[in-house]
């Protein structure tokens, strides 16, 4: 008998009830399936590869159809590209499909952005220097390990510091890119932007990296996909329905003189793309049959034939097994992420979507939970391998190489009851066994969520994989009802929300799926991209510019016109910040974003995504024409909230309230970095390095006062009230802006990895943060080491305002593994995340790892190829993250006991 069992017995005999404790020690997580291990090891060895199959076919067919109606022309180009890609199937795979012919591949989209390649064409042809970098790229540091190709090697050219392209494909890239030299989204929208009188202002924001990047860089994503139409109908039926709709609408305007005629074109495009995707899936069937014919191993031969059977079926009909349904959603997903540069194309609530098939297969005895877990493990590799090609600053720096295909769990169903089902337990289990960065998992925490599921989630978090993140279901629903009320958001649709991308709350809806003689209400996305608006803006940098009269001391650019105000009151300072500079930035950036995104929808209307997204097919309108149910999805992404709030608190305290220093003295200290070396000089981007220069003694008093000024995260009203004021001032500004959809904006408060590069461009700030050091991550995490009163005080500060005012908020917490050891530790982890949810926190996620381990991994990356950390709304391999972000993660406050 084990000691634990003896203890149980003694306690029971002594009359102490410990029945809820079955085991003190953590349960051992079973090994992943041998297939998973084999395939993930292949993944680890693979380099990020771009190839030209897709761009070549897209371009060729696009060119052949010159003069066609754009959305039909684009459907033809996409369909041709998909159906001409080489289908790759590896031995041992059960799920088929890839984004490209490569296991870990992507490709470029010159129709979106070609200047990068054209500028470098000659150099690439000659095999010399890499293309020059844009301002934002230059301050973004890409991780050098793992699959990243940061330098040329052998016959491989490094592109965007991340991808490798075979040298023999360079001429094809150059030729395809040349075609778009004048007509890409980037070029066309730039010409329009330059026609605006305030274009130079925009150029100033971008060149100073105050605003991080352009909308066309990743025009789609940060949204939730909708698999309903293919799962309900199958491709043959979709094509039939298109024919019916074409007969009904082509040539008919109805009552709509502007867009009525587009319906017919929309259905023609839908038919073409449905045929293309169907053919693409068929190609996998043919490939599998070919492989089977040449396979001598009987077991492998059968596996190929099984794949062929699945592919043949789902290329035409509604799926009939769980495996078919899962594989169909996977192919639909690849189809969408191949339409545009994509990140954050969220899977949504997969366990709720696929439950009908799981339920039937289990009831029929045709599959087992173990088989389902194996498929879900393999699915993880497929999603992990999805890469996105954009510029280095965007893919490597901002996104840390992750593509944020987020899978949600929990929440409520159409009936308002918990949506957790047995399949969702298996999804978590597969994530525990099959450790991999994607899909990241998000629990939509609701008080109705079963306790056992909450504990299962806590068990998974404890493995240190960074997932699941915890999101507030009621908070998300409140946000939906609040923000989408003008578009008629209902309580039923609000229940279908899910995070798109890392945590861009996206609207959804339930649709009736008919299968196995029953009707299931399955959730899915109901709005286009919920993230492509005004991009990451360094809020502390903007404060620096207010203090410097609009002049960027780092680059020498006069970013804003001098305000020439004295700033002799705190209110006066806020007035310039919010009502002059920020207001201008929002208005100008919104116009530029609108021009970029409108150009995008005119040149590259989404075709496949517009077939899938809820209501487009019913309305007969593309997403570009507001075909989806909800369209007020465009956001303003802020970065560095907490450094802004802490800086305002320090200035308020030291300059205006206590009058210890004049504003001039404060500025002098900031411009001189308080007498310390900058992060660039020390090479350390987190605040634990403060190397003094000879100026240090001069500024030590003011530095000390800045460091000791009230800080967010300590339940201190002095500073928390500044955060409340900030949120209160931002909301009406958002509601006053109008996106290219003609709808209001909202705040998106996540940093992704932009707190690295935007910290890099910001001089010392009044909160005592030194020049170049990374901002506090997320929007609710405290600046490292400034939270002195523990995590509960932090929770109190974080929930000082209503999080449902915004699309999201973000809290990253690092917990030492010893604090939550054992089954009691699992309960205590649940206690802590539940506490934050009950207070109204929108999101919390955990790194269960010690700083010691991370330091070792930074020193010896090769020994830690599979180490994963939570960065912002996503998990990434440690070795593929840039050093500034690595430093930041190491230096986050670690909660132990």
């Amino acid at each position, binding site marked *: 008998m084990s*000691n634990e069992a*003896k*203890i*149980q017995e*003694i*306690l029971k*005999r*002594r009359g*102490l009830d*410990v029945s809820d*404790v079955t085991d*003190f*020690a953590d349960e051992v997580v079973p090994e992943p399936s041998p297939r998973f291990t084999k395939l993930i090891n292949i993944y680890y060895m693979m380099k990020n590869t771009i190839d030209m199959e897709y761009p070549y076919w897209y371009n060729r067919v696009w060119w052949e159809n010159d003069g066609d109606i754009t959305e039909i022309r684009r459907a033809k180009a996409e369909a041709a590209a998909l159906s001409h890609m080489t289908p790759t199937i590896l031995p041992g795979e059960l799920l088929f499909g890839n984004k490209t012919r490569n296991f870990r591949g992507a490709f470029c989209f010159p129709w979106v952005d070609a200047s990068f390649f054209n500028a470098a064409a000659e150099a690439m042809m000659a095999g010399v220097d890499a293309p020059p970098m844009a301002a934002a790229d230059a301050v973004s540091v890409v991780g050098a390990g793992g699959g990243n190709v940061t330098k040329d090697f052998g016959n491989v050219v490094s592109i965007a510091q991340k991808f490798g392209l075979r040298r023999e494909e360079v001429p094809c890239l150059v030729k395809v890119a040349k075609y778009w030299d004048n007509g890409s989204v980037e070029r066309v929208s730039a010409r329009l932007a330059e026609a605006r009188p305030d274009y130079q202002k925009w150029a100033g924001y971008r060149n100073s990296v105050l605003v991080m990047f352009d909308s066309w860089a990743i025009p789609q994503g940060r949204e939730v996909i909708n698999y309903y139409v293919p799962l309900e109908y199958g491709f043959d039926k979709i094509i039939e329905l298109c024919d019916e709709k074409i007969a009904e609408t082509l040539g008919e305007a109805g009552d709509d003189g502007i867009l009525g005629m587009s319906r017919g074109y929309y259905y023609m495009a839908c038919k073409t793309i449905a045929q293309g995707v169907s053919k693409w899936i068929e190609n996998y069937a043919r490939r599998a049959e070919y492989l089977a014919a040449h396979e001598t191993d009987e077991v492998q031969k059968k596996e190929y034939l099984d794949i062929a059977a699945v592919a043949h079926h789902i290329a035409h009909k509604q799926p009939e097994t769980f495996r078919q349904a899962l594989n169909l959603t996977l192919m639909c997903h690849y189809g969408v992420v191949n339409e545009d540069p994509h990140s954050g194309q969220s899977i949504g609530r997969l366990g709720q979507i696929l439950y009908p098939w799981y339920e039937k297969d289990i009831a029929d005895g045709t599959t087992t939970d173990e088989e389902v877990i194996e498929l879900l493990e393999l699915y993880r590799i497929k999603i992990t391998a999805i890469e996105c090609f954009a510029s280095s600053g965007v893919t490597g720096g901002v996104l840390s190489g992750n593509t944020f295909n987020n899978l949600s769990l929990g929440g409520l169903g159409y009936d308002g009851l918990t949506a957790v089902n047995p399949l969702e337990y298996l999804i978590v289990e597969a994530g525990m066994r099959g450790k991999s960065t994607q899909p990241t998992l998000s629990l939509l925490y609701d008080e109705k969520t079963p306790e056992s599921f909450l504990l299962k989630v806590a068990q998974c978090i404890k493995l240190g994989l960074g997932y699941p993140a915890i999101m507030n279901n009621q908070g998300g629903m409140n946000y939906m009802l609040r923000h989408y009320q003008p578009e008629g958001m209902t309580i039923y649709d609000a229940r279908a929300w899910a995070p798109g991308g890392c945590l861009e709350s996206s609207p959804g809806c339930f649709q009736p799926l008919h299968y196995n003689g029953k009707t299931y209400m399955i959730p899915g996305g109901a709005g286009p991209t919920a993230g492509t608006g005004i991009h990451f803006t360094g809020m502390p940098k903007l404060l620096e510019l207010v203090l410097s009269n609009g002049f960027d001391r780092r680059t020498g650019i006069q970013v804003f016109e001098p305000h020439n105000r004295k700033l002799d009151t705190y209110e006066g300072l806020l007035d310039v910040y919010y009502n002059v500079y920020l207001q201008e930035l929002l208005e100008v950036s919104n116009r530029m974003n609108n021009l970029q995104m409108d150009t995008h929808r005119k040149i590259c209307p989404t075709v496949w995504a517009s077939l899938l997204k809820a209501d487009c097919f019913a309305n007969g309108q593309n997403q570009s024409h507001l075909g989806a149910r909800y369209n007020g999805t465009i956001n303003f992404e802020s970065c560095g909230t907490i450094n802004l709030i802490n800086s305002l608190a320090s200035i308020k305290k030291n300059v205006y309230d206590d009058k210890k220093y004049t504003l001039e003295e404060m500025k002098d200290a900031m411009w001189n970095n308080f007498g310390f070396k900058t992060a660039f000089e020390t090479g350390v981007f987190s605040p634990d*390095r*403060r*190397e*003094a*220069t000879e100026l*240090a*003694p001069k500024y*030590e*008093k003011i*530095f*000390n006062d800045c*460091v*000791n000024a009230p800080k967010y995260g300590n*339940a201190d009203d002095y500073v928390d009230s500044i955060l409340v004021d900030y949120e209160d001032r931002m909301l009406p500004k958002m509601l006053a802006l109008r996106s290219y959809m003609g709808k209001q904006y909202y705040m998106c408060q996540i940093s992704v990895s932009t707190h690295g590069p935007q910290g890099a461009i910001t001089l010392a700030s009044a909160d*005592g943060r030194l020049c170049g050091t990374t901002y506090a991550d997320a929007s609710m995490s405290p600046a490292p080491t400034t939270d002195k*009163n*523990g*995590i*509960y*005080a932090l*929770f*109190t500060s974080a929930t000082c305002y209503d999080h449902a005012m915004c699309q999201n908020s973000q809290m990253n917490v690092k917990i030492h593994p*010893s*604090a*939550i*050891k*054992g089954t*009691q*530790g699992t*309960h*205590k982890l*649940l*206690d*802590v995340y*539940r*506490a*934050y949810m*009950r*207070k109204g926190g929108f999101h919390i996620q955990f790194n269960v790892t010690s700083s010691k381990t991370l330091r070792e991994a930074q020193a010896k990356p090769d020994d830690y190829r599979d180490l994963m950390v939570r960065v912002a709304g996503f998990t990434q391999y440690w070795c593929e993250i840039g050093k500034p972000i690595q430093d930041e993660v190491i230096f986050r406050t670690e*909660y132990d*006991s």
Partner: protein
Amino acid sequence: MPQDTTGMIFDIQSYSVHDGPGCRTNVFFVGCPLQCRWCANPESWAVKKHLLFAERSCKWDQGCTACRDACPNGSLKFNDQGKPCVDWAICNKCETIECSEVCAAHALKQCVRFLTVDDLMKVLMRDFPNWGSNGGVTFSGGEPLLHHEFLDQVLQRCRKEQMHTAIETSGFASPEVFKKIFRNLNFAFIDVKNMDEEMHKWGTGVSNKPILNNIATLAHADWWRGRLVLRQPTIHGYNDSTENAKRLIEFMNENGLFEINLLRFHRMGGTKWEQLGKVYEYNDHGDMPEERMLALQELYLDNDIACYIGEDTPF
């Protein structure tokens, strides 16, 4: 000196997960009547404000000299490289601790805060919603019973708010004080460091008699409504003998006690001794061999006593 309604506290730790059931807030009082040779919190001994010098946070090696004139008594001195060193003979007499005010790195820290009952209740009320259904507040130290006037008032307030309360104590107090405090507690850890009176005196400076008496009283008291878990910091060569364990088992069985938590000796407090300018005698011995810990656990279990090692507890 503090009023009755003022507590001297050197730390309040939230999300404390190994000091009682569930998630807790742990309030560490300053001052201890015992002076254990292996103590992990030596900064909590003195009942007065004092300095803690966290050398590892000090930025002297990065050129910081902010504290060069910070001590009006001349206790801060600097070696050839510029590294600050505290002259503890001078520093221990200081109750103003001005030097901590100039240190942006928080390497020079003042150890003690004075909180009123209201101040402390404000913190506890703030943390209350975070504890979950079985968590609460733990009073620890130092020795919380030293501050019984203050603690009594706090505990009455906690009881009124229906907070779960726990204590970590040496149990070294008069029977009156002991009863006053324990009648309002839900959970207690009481240390039994050694069953041998002489050994107890050698290790802690005091007799174990009042402690064992208090425990025995509690075990039979009708005013005690809580759960009692004995604790022992288990130190190789000091109290890990079979003989000592057997005597404790006998004592527990006599009093109907059946839970004990053995805490492996650790050296994490060692740097604090240095920070306080004291010599730490347990620098190189006292470590518990793993098999010895398990043997002790077996011994307790075989005698019908639930014995938990370290953090592996059923609460």
